[in-house]
């Protein structure tokens, strides 16, 4: 997002600009998911029994495990950002590496879950609940992938010695984005897995 090489910026303005840019971008992401949450609300109000019956087919244990995985990954991102603020690039790389690993675990669990659903003949289009389930978790999954790519890029930049205690804008920005990806899951998990 940011353009650290732009000569016309002084670094403080560049950092503030990047931050405002990422927050604005996250606002667009909220609206992107917002439409799906709206569809969820409409259909859940219309078909409460369907949602209650169908959600029981989801695996709560795997869902809960994945929630723990993602929350832990948010924690490691924070540790990474904290490390580079103290100028410790190697520790940043380690913590971001751990985050990428946890994201990978999350996607593997998701793969197991999807495979089990397909095995039982549950597809997008089977009914509205599973359409929503696959669309919402699918869109979220794409965001996890994008986040992994972004964090990997930051690690590569860090290995080239780009970041220091005084300049680490991309680290902070990718961290913000990763927190958002986690936050979406925090909403998805109860809405899909824990219907009363």
């Amino acid at each position, binding site marked *: 997002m940011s353009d650290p090489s732009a000569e016309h910026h002084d670094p403080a303005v560049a950092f503030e600009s990047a931050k*405002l840019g990422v927050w604005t971008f996250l606002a667009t992401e909220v609206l992107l*998911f*917002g439409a799906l949450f709206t569809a969820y609300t409409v*259909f859940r109000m219309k078909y409460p029994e369907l949602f209650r019956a169908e959600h029981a087919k989801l695996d709560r244990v795997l869902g809960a495990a994945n929630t723990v995985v993602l929350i832990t990954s948010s924690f490691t991102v924070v540790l990474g950002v904290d490390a580079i603020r103290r100028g410790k690039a190697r520790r940043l790389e380690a913590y971001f590496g751990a985050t990428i690993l946890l994201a990978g675990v999350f996607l593997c669990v998701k793969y197991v879950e999807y495979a089990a659903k397909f095995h039982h003949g549950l597809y997008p289009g089977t009914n*509205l609940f599973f*359409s929503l389930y696959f669309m919402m978790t699918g869109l979220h999954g794409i965001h996890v992938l994008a986040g992994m790519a972004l964090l990997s890029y930051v690690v590569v930049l860090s290995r080239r010695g780009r970041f220091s205690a005084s300049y680490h804008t991309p680290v902070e920005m990718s961290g913000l984005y990763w927190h958002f990806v986690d936050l979406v899951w925090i909403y998805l998990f109860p809405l899909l897995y824990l219907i009363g």
Partner: protein
Amino acid sequence: METEGVGRMEAEGNGRGYLAERGWRSWAFTLDHKRIGAMYLWTTTVFFLIGGVFALLLRLELLSPQAHYFSNHTYNIFFTLHGSMMIFLFIIPAIPSGLGNFFIPLHLGARDVAFPRLNLASYWVFAAGFLVIIGSLVAPMDTGWTFYTPYSAKTGAAVTTLSLGVFLIGMSSILTGLNFIVTIHKMRAPGMTWHRMPLFLWAMYATSIIQVIATPVVGVTFLLLAAERVLGVGFFDPAKGGDPVLFQHFFWFYSHPVVYVMILPAMGIVSEVIPVFSRKPIFGYKAIAYSSLAIAFMGFLVWGHHMFTSGMSPLANAIFSFLTFFVAVPTAVKVFNWIATLYRGSITFESPMLYALTFIFLFIVGGLTGPFLGAMATNVQLHDTYFVVAHFHYTMMGGTVMGFFAGLHYWFPKMTGKMLNEKVARIAWALVFVGFNVTFFTMFIAGTRGMPRRYAEYLPKFHTENVISTIGSAVLALGILVMCWNFLQGLRKGAPAPSDPWRALTLEWRTASPPDVENFHEIPRVADWPYGYGTPKA
């Protein structure tokens, strides 16, 4: 604008400025907002002309009551292509991404936008989007530009491909809007407080907010439409418990606010041009500035008025109808302030001013026919008739496109360093003005008499109106051709433009024509608002 130091007198010479570097690489990989803006202008203008050709073909077909030149299906494809191209590839990006990119940093006294690489990315995402859309022409769309389900979920046309294309266009629109918001917040020159910003910037700021907030929703809507076709998810399919009206809600949640993405930048241009050619300070600066934000805000609350006949509850209809009338208030605030600016001004009628006045005149007609459609009782009569077609062409073409033309004529000397032939520009204007009114005013009459839109055939009693309208469209097309010819002539052999041919006070006129890559040799310091016309200093 009162500026201090070198900034004021730095404009020198008539070199090629930012255009000095040559070769395709200097364009394709440029980070210069002026070049990116110019690429957007060229691209969108080409699509404007192509979309216009489709419109002329439609008018040609409507010369006779029966389908004559091509089949009904072909007609459906043509009006879909006309609408989609004009909206997604011309009117939404043209002013914001074209003129906005070029002039926002210049107006701010900045060297570039906040994220130059993101800016270039947005252009190439846009290019990818229109390539995909062109690719979808193998099975051309026949749904109208609104893509209503259930038809769009079933038709054999390449809806899925087109959805992807529109998604990419939307992404480019979000990136541009985001860039402008940050730029306006963070890149203002020293002394450029919010209330010293040119009104074009206020309009662009409001526009960017809408782009950023509304576009993701239509993005996901098109994803869902694609999912509907590929996976059969059923959100919009009643057979699976889904709801086609939900699609309409999603679609209009974006597509109503986006009409303000189309009109607000044009209003910004008019707010710049009117005081310059009236030699008077703009009247009601803050009212115009904040009405832009008010329009952006209220624009989000009225989408339901596109759906009065779609089966919403009467209560929802009444609320949307009521809110719709409210949007008229900030819009009227602007119009009254422009007229108050004109009052007792020393008005001259150069081509930018002619188009700006045309904007006001036509937009009043377009605006005042809006409440007829916003009121439920008359809406039910007029829904989906030519009255609607006339109404939105008066606002979109009579409004936005005239504002765009005003901007092109106003800023041509700055962008190219060349002057236009003013006489030819006025002839083109006269043809456009007459042609436009003959084409579209007759549609109001046909519409109130009950002629439905989107049919290749019509009852013989509407024949006269349609013939008049088609003749008008030919005059309009001639006017636009003359204008384009004038632009090309101006580019090739126009007289060198001085740095400030219109004696305007905003910062872009303090730089050379065309500006250098760096925009300003030294970042200007701003000490006053840019509308001090008629005072001794101006």
